[in-house]
């Protein structure tokens, strides 16, 4: 059970203020999700072939400079790295099927949060204000983002259990609600070679949808299959390289509100997270209908 926020900036001049506009949204959902917070930011797209990997070292200290040097020596001498405390983003022309086994072998203590050409991912335990400060969320720039504040229900409070969840490349999902058949979904996917990192119910939804898309479904078709297979209560907000998508289950018990102006689309669990946004009084406000798929393009 949680708070979700999303923001897509239509006006390019605003891209530099993405973080600044978003932080009060995330902090505003602190009551709904006090135990961890996370954020996926979609930035300028890298050229084809290059990928960004968001890495997380948890409580342990990682010497990122050594990691970069090792990666340059063993994988690609063009690799670059941007570190931010216990997070770092490694950018290089390295394919995931090369990078992932390398990371597991060389740095088993590190957690790979995301992979993609546009996606940077941060998540950690603590309230959203603390997490936002820890990683200087207000300085982030980009086109759109997906954020989450978590109130854990059945699974543990760890950074890995925090949202957003990612699967594949440039795809992430946050969830408010609770699924009632996550274990069955998991048992369906694991034999297909899909690996799970946590026992969180949301991860099951994320991997299910990504699996459908890897099988050729577009996001809309994957979500329609999701309506049939994913049981329980949910409001899902998803991000791809150029889209935000929002759905609610048939009972729509968990709240969501959308505000749209010429400059932005903002999504939150409650209006109070949107009240500070510029021109909110003029925004078109609506609540997403159950089992309807809303997609906004960058």
């Amino acid at each position, binding site marked *: 059970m949680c708070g979700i926020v999303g923001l897509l900036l239509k006006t390019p001049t605003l891209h530099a203020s993405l973080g600044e506009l978003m932080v009060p949204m995330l902090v505003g959902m602190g009551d709904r999700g006090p135990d961890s917070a996370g954020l996926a930011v979609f930035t300028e797209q890298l050229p084809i072939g290059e990928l960004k990997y968001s890495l997380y070292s948890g409580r342990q200290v990682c010497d990122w400079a050594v990691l970069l040097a090792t990666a340059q020596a063993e994988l690609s001498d063009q690799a670059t790295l941007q570190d931010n405390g216990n997070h770092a983003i490694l950018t290089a022309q390295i394919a995931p099927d090369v990078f992932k086994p390398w990371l597991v072998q060389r740095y088993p203590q590190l957690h790979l949060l995301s992979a993609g050409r546009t996606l940077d991912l941060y998540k950690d335990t603590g309230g959203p204000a603390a997490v936002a400060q820890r990683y200087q969320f207000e300085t982030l720039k980009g086109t759109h983002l997906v954020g989450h504040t978590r109130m854990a229900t059945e699974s543990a409070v760890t950074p890995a259990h925090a949202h957003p969840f990612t699967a594949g490349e440039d795809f992430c999902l946050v969830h408010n609600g609770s699924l009632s058949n996550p274990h069955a979904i998991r048992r369906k996917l694991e034999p297909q070679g899909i690996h799970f990192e946590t026992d969180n119910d949301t991860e099951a939804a994320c991997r299910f949808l990504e699996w459908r898309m890897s099988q050729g479904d577009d996001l809309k078709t994957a979500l329609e299959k999701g309506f049939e297979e994913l049981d329980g209560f949910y409001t899902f907000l998803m991000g791809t390289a150029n889209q935000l998508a929002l759905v609610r289950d*048939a*009972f*729509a*018990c968990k*709240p969501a*509100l959308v505000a749209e102006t010429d400059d932005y689309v903002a999504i939150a669990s*409650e*209006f*109070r*997270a*949107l*009240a*500070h946004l510029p021109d909110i009084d003029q925004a078109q*406000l*609506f*609540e997403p*209908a*159950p089992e309807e798929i809303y997609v906004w393009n960058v």
Partner: protein
Amino acid sequence: MERLTLDATVSKPLSFDLRQTSLRQVNQFLHRELTAGQTVQIAHPDGAHSLAVGLTVPAEVNVEGHVGYYAAGMNQQARVTIRGNAGPGVAENMMSGRVHVTGFASVSAGASAHGGRLIIDGDAGLRCGISLKGADIVVGGSVGSFSAFMAQAGRLVICGDAGDALGDSLYEAVIYIRGEAKSLGADAQFEEMRDRDYEALHELLSEADLTHDPRSFRRIASAKQLYHWNANAQQDY
């Protein structure tokens, strides 16, 4: 003998700004200091929850902006106007008085309300009037699925359309709908409109300043097949 006129009790409007005064202070004022006939303005609700809950006196409270959950919850006697949108459970369990939302209302508007009037100019979300126990709800727009679920008494007027399962497991509450319902819930049925329905609708619509012709509405009430435990209705239990 002199009759006290309403004017004698009206004092000048009081105003609060929720960016300056805390919700708790505003609510405590409304509980302890508010007197009959007073008017209070509340600015910048910014989606606050539980605003103006538990009012007990016939006073006027005007909220300028969008509110969060349970605005005017359990209202008694007060007339609360929300110039904006309302979050989940607006006027939940209202006993009397009147709550007016000029924008849209989220889910569970007027849930289990026992009395009074709830007027929503825009649309209402899912489960509008769930477990309704005697209040009247007038929705200028459409309502979401499962509206009037298990509604026991009172009336729900829908000027637009309704989602799925309208009036599921109704008891004695009555629904009037002008548009289309995607589907009716278990045990709900369309019924013939009678004179008293037209009269009731006329009154409810005028109270909400709506000019629709009562003859453009249809009546939905309980078929009463679920009133007693029986094998033929088992799927619906």
